[in-house]
């Protein structure tokens, strides 16, 4: 990959390196399968009917699109002074480039072993690229691409998410901002 010309050395240095390998806060819960399916009115019987799940998927599995949920930290936990953030590299880049706002613009997920109740999912993040500064409708900032790999307690790959984010400064400050 061609390095981005104006990229600081400390950012260039972490591109391609696996970072923030960590286990999820809790074992995978089937309750989330139902909440997720209900949120989109998904009647797929593998989430609702144990007999169908046994026959087709050898038991209950999580909706595949829940992949990233298993590593999103609790919003609060006892003794935690600083909010623990999901996709930490994304927030590292916002801070590093002093870009107060950010959105995710693209996601590509490849699904492998299904996730099942009781699984402990480990995630690890990898910065793939950071663009030069550019101005878009939302503001001026940079695009970045981050991979997140998910593995179960047996080390089996459950999925890989590739996120593209855009961190930016708004061109027109909000009216109510001091």
């Amino acid at each position: 990959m061609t390095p981005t010309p104006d990229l600081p050395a400390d950012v260039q240095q972490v591109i391609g390196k696996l970072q923030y390998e960590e286990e999820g806060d809790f074992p995978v819960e089937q309750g989330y399968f139902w909440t997720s399916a209900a949120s989109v009115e998904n009647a797929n019987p593998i989430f609702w009917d144990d007999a169908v799940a046994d026959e087709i998927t050898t038991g209950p599995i999580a909706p595949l699109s829940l992949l990233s949920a298993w590593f999103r930290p609790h919003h609060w936990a006892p003794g935690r002074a600083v909010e623990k953030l999901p996709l930490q590299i994304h927030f590292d880049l916002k801070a590093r480039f002093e870009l107060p706002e950010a959105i995710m613009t693209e996601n590509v997920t490849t699904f492998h072993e299904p996730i099942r109740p009781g699984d402990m999912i480990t995630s690890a993040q990898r910065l793939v690229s950071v663009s030069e500064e550019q101005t878009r409708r939302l503001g001026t900032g940079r695009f970045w691409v981050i991979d997140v790999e998910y593995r179960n307690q047996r080390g089996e790959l459950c999925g890989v998410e590739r996120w593209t984010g855009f961190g930016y400064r708004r061109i027109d400050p909000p009216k109510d901002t001091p």
Partner: protein
Amino acid sequence: MITLEQVKVGDALPALTYDVTSTTVVLGALATRDWRPMHHDYHFAVERQGVQDIFLNSPNQGAWLERFLTDWTGPKGRLGRLQFKMRKPIFPGDTMVIEGLVRDVSVDKTGCGWAELELTIRVSDVTCTESEAKVAIPTSPDDNPWQRHGERWNP
């Protein structure tokens, strides 16, 4: 439940139309453990993010697309890859329409049947999300893509 021989390039999937509410947005965010305020806090979304309202989060859009695909394939359909780009946010009050078109049908070297699809989520005439998906579909009534692991699963 469909099998691969029933799928042809150019097939259109049955459209899914849904009226998005604030509950849709908040429920989707909480279901995916996404606590970021632009998915539940109107003032944050408007004043900090500069958008008109709270909006559907990425993983929940993935859940809508997953549902749309398996409504079509039946439960043996197994999603292998899902890509999407969010062009415009989807807000409460929007009627979103999810549509899909089969772009390719193939069988890989392990015998797994695949359909590749182009999907969109639009509101009125505006495409809010563009997506591509690769879904494993049984090659016969006895085939089950969920039984594939390791080298026999190449999404």
